[in-house]
């Protein structure tokens, strides 16, 4: 019962974006995708979302080919938050979050929809400006609103809670201030504790070390290393990938990576 890709290769034209990747997102865990720009992180997240047909290999949900599951059924099993979430018309934050309920139309009571939206607005600290137009918000506030939409989508009605759900996040903290970065990932942590599996692309290594159960390090489309942050996030493993020199720094009881030179 997992969301997984098996020996996945993705080519666009002649460029190989991902080469022979196998990874699964397990229920209740946070899997981090790390790697420099162009390593293939967003493409892998897209493959897990079922956005495109793999060039080779397959993506599956509970053993079933993702490509064979229709969009609506997929939408009831996983929510996706991509970078650059912008809307064409001036929706309010609440309207954007309500869009997260659209896969559940007809399956979920209106009262349940309302509760799910209210919960998502509260969890992401966007209640205060829920009735403002998205266009008037800062980048970070918009990002939190998009996160709230994903949470609202994941909030299954009582009749459907038995199925395993997944949350896919592409750099969800890129526009957030420090406290909201931690607030968002803590919310993800609490969500995972209730059962859903999470896959998150992160650029901040220290955030990844702190919140992820496992990390997959991608380098030029290949799986460079996979394991717990403690195993993988060492100066020796990450140095060649990011092409910088790291050193481990003890800060309190946490080990952090710092760039030297």
């Amino acid at each position, binding site marked *: 019962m997992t969301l997984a890709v098996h020996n996945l290769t993705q080519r666009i034209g002649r460029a190989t974006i991902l080469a022979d990747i196998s990874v699964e997102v397990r229920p209740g865990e946070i899997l981090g995708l790390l790697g420099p720009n162009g390593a293939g992180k967003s493409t892998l997240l*897209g493959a897990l*979302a079922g*956005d495109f047909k793999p060039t080779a290999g397959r993506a599956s949900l509970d053993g079933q080919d993702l490509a064979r599951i*229709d*969009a*609506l*059924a*997929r*939408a*009831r099993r996983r*929510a*996706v938050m*991509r970078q650059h*979430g*912008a*809307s*064409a*018309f*001036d*929706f*309010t934050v609440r*309207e*954007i979050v309500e*869009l*997260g309920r*659209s*896969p559940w*139309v007809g399956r979920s009571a209106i009262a349940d929809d309302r509760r799910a939206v209210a919960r998502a607005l509260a969890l992401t600290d966007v209640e205060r*400006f829920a*009735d*403002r*137009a998205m*266009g*008037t*918000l*800062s980048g970070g506030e918009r990002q939190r609103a998009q996160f709230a939409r994903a949470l609202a*989508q994941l909030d299954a009605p009582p009749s459907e809670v038995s199925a395993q759900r997944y949350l896919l996040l592409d750099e969800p903290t890129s526009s957030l201030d420090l406290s909201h970065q931690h607030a968002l990932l803590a919310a993800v942590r609490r969500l995972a504790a209730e059962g859903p599996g999470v896959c998150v692309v992160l650029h901040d290594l220290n955030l990844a070390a702190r919140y992820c159960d496992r990390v997959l390090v991608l380098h030029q489309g290949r799986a460079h290393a996979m394991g717990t942050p403690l195993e993988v996030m060492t100066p020796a493993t990450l140095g060649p990938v990011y092409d910088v020199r790291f050193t481990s720094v003890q800060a309190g009881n946490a080990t952090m990576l710092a760039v030297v030179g």
Partner: protein
Amino acid sequence: MSDLSIPAAAAVPRRVKRPLALVVFGVALVLAFLCAVGFGAVRIMPGDILAIVLRAVDVDPRLEAVFLAIRLPRAVLALVVGAGLGIAGASMQGLFRNPLADPGLIGVSAGAALAAVAVIVLGGSVLHLITPAQRPWLLPAASFIGGLIATALVYRMGTRGGSTSVATMLLAGIAVNALCAAGIGFLTYIADENQLRLLMFWTMGSLGAASWGVILPALPLVVIPALLLLRAHRALDAMALGEREASHLGIEVEGVKRRIVVLVALCVGGAVSVSGIIGFVGLVVPHLVRLIGGPRHALVLPGAAMLGGALMLSADLVARLIMAPAEMPVGIVMAAFGAPVFLSIMARRHTATAL
């Protein structure tokens, strides 16, 4: 919070709630309809209409004839064409994720008009191929196919790798419009006297041809796709976030896109076949609806239909009265009103976000 230059109170958009907004649009539509059937060389008051409808015995037969044979078909035509163009515009804008997309601007109307003009000028040679019963359908069918080809062409040009570039699409629309204008120009050049009079009507847009015989075949062609488009509101809301996002929310994006393109081409083709090219309705009306009630398509689609009908009824009234007893093509009235609104939308968007 400190990065906001807009005071929070001003940033909360003032919106009329959906039920109230629909009532307001409905009232506007009824008023416009009553004015459209009421004003002209003969005044027909709402009381007279009631008497005619209830088949009262003391009705002036001249009044009844004017109402039933002239005013009513024309008002119904204006209502249906306006509603169809309004909802087609709203759907197009939702599909292209841009409030500037309009069936007229991107060439759908021109494609439909070119096909209709071709039927008028060259149709004599194919008329013997079809039965007389099929003849009323020839023009609407040709308009639909012309509109569909233009839409497909513009859409194909504007879409690369699954994402639609609005700038490319608008440019492709300019090219399609120019190409269709060239085609219409050529057909005009080879047309005879009788055909020329008809062509004037096509290219400027007019409701002057309204008679039950002309409009009845075209009505279902506009009304049915318009009703089907109403059901796309959830998909269009999701599409506003982007095509990938819409698919993440469970929308079968490719199917929805194809369906909307075909329905819009039907709607616009049907409207063009009976009224010629009338621009700006599809552009201005959805914009007004969003301004009043917000961007959700559960309001924008029916609202654009209602307000589109009301606007077209009003514009046609102006077209009939301004130079009475002569009448102006309604397309000219609509362009005179719509083009400045279009410019103001562009100016506003320029300051808010990029195209």
